[in-house]
């Protein structure tokens, strides 16, 4: 049990820390995130158009091809040590698109290579992307079940 005096001391200290802490520049952060994120999305659209109108692929093939291309580019940029610099500049702008997901898989793969292919890369590959997969797939199952139930009615 914490005494009241200690709780009060902690509260006072939290206020002091909040007062003296340097703050993030939100306007700058938003500007960078949106322009870099926007450019990545435009790039995706461009790739999609090449597949669609240049190569005359079907809609599904275009979408899959675009994802694969973006993931490849992101993995490549991660591998040659560029993506972390983009991420440092753009923040959510380069985390939210599919390229951020690829980066979060490739980065641990590189980092834990020295612990071996099984317990290193194999076990650590999804340390960052794992939660997204677990809850993303779980949510899709729930939504799918609801949709199925609605159709039955």
């Amino acid at each position, binding site marked *: 049990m914490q005494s009241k005096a200690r709780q009060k*001391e*902690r509260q006072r*200290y*939290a206020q*002091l*820390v909040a007062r*003296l*802490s*340097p*703050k*993030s520049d939100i306007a700058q952060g938003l500007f960078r995130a949106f322009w870099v994120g926007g450019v990545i999305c435009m790039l995706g659209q461009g790739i999609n158009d090449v597949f669609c109108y240049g190569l005359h692929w079907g809609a599904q093939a275009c979408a899959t091809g675009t994802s694969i291309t973006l993931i490849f580019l992101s993995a490549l940029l*991660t*591998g040659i*040590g560029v*993506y*972390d*610099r*983009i*991420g*440092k500049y*753009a*923040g959510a702008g*380069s*985390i939210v698109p599919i390229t*951020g997901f690829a*980066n*979060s898989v*490739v*980065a*641990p793969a*590189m*980092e*834990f290579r*020295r612990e071996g292919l099984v317990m290193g890369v194999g076990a650590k590959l999804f340390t*960052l992307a794992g939660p997204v997969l677990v809850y993303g797939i779980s949510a899709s199952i729930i939504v799918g079940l609801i949709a199925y139930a609605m159709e039955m009615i």
Partner: protein
Amino acid sequence: MSKRIGARTVELPGRPGILAWASVAGQKEQDGPYGAQFDVVIPDELNGEQSFEAAERSLLETAVKRCAQHAGCALSDVQMLLAGDLLNQIISAGFAARNLEIPFYGLYGACSTMSESLSIGSMLADGGFADRLICATCSHFCTAERQYRAPLELGNQRTPTAQWTVTGAGAVMLGAGPAARHAQVSVAQTTCGKVIDLGIADQNNMGAAMAPAAADTIAAHLQDTRRTFEDFDLVVTGDLGRLGRDLLIELLTQKGIAVREEKLFDCGCEIFGPQQDTHCGGSGCGCAASMLCAHILPQLAGGKLRRVLFLATGALLSPTSSMQGESIPGVAHAVVLEHREA
């Protein structure tokens, strides 16, 4: 006869001497304002090793060997090695000791290890339990990132309060008796730190987590020895960083201590320049250790500084405790280093 003064401080009447010291640093540290003062700078992050962890222990080994070389004695003449580091199970220290073959006590005090080892080491020397011993510690940016934070290539942003783990090491040889007769620096007192936790749980804000422990130890030391800031040329803290240093000043002022800000030298604030984009400054065991050995001890030996209160600060968290939402306890041990006429 008791050697204790006040509630928390130990007087060292034998005045154990600091016989030699050595610092090792990485490339980014060399690019900082004190870059030219380090004894050894490693060429890259791996330093010719297979992994960052092996590179980190090579820093420690290099520092210890260089320190013995400076003292002009063989490693076999060193009776004890007191060392620790940040990695789980302090593997850098243990593995380095395996190669150094010096009898070894492993310490864990996180980034406070340099002053913790000096504190214990000076008591051992003063008590006559060792004539020659080395206190050492190290840290490495890449090993700390993977243990505490994220893979290096992950494209994330660091928060404004984050600090940059120093790649570096420091080793200090303490001696007593005839070996220490010509030492130009001695340890006069030491104050053992209490573990203090004021509820900071953000592991990207170590400065705020550790500042209360530093304030507590400084206040205890000043009270026990009836000293003020005026009695010191410098009060050197380990790696509080810019925010932590500001908080320390505020906390000390609240305790009614007259702080002379220009005497408060934080290694974390100093080791990197403002252009190096480290946010709140440097951190890690190697921060206080390398700066002590590269910048503070030479000035003490030369007489430019006469008396320094040195306290490295440590955050006693682990990745597990942080994930479980626990707040971060801090600790800081203090040693008084004095210039001695040879």
